């Protein structure tokens, strides 16, 4: 399950809903990761663009991978502006035993940072500035620079 919300995520509500959805599914472990906007470099907040068609297919591949391990992945992400101390990202893994969930959440969040088609901007002095230095080129980038 992947949900996109405009603006900040309602973290307690989403985590509670996910718990309610799965608490009778016989999973022994529920591990969540919440990403919250920190105050640094004078920013007022962050802003996000995303490209849904590829984001959904990227997430679907992870859902399939999780199913093979007997696990389930859920994710929520913000679109647009998210201010300081609000949250823009939640990922969670449910699995029968803790080890699969612990390993999968780590792998999933790392791949999310490297390959999910989401672009981050700093909100600062009424400007929206692309976070170029903190961004990562998707695997296989650069094809068009050759030839």
């Amino acid at each position, binding site marked *: 399950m992947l949900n996109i919300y405009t603006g900040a995520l309602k973290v307690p509500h989403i985590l509670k809903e996910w718990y309610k959805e799965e608490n009778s599914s016989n999973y022994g472990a529920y591990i969540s990761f919440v990403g919250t906007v920190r105050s640094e470099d004078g920013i007022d907040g962050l802003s996000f663009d995303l*490209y849904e068609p590829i984001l959904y297919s990227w997430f679907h591949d992870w859902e399939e991978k999780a199913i093979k391990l007997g696990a389930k992945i859920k994710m929520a992400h913000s679109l647009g502006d998210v201010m300081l101390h609000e949250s823009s990202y939640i990922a969670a893994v449910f699995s029968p035993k803790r080890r699969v969930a612990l390993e999968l959440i780590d792998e999933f969040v790392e791949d999310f940072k490297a390959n999910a088609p989401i672009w*981050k901007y700093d909100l600062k002095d009424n400007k929206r500035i692309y976070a170029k230095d903190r961004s990562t080129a998707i695997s296989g980038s*650069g*094809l068009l620079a050759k030839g």
Partner: protein
Amino acid sequence: MVKVEFLGPIQKPTLELEITNLNELPAILQADAEVNIWLESCAVALNDTLVSSLEAPLKDGDKISLLPPVCGG
């Protein structure tokens, strides 16, 4: 006619081109200085699937997307 769209921070309107293979695209985009600076760091998708080779025949209505470096979360 195929469409080339520029995602995220690349502030560039969608292009419409008469090309029949993806391998014709580098020369066209490299000639545009505004776009050229992004090419080294961009991934390419054809009809919303990332590609690993530019050897791909194109048909009318195909959509090509350029995806610059990402940072979710």
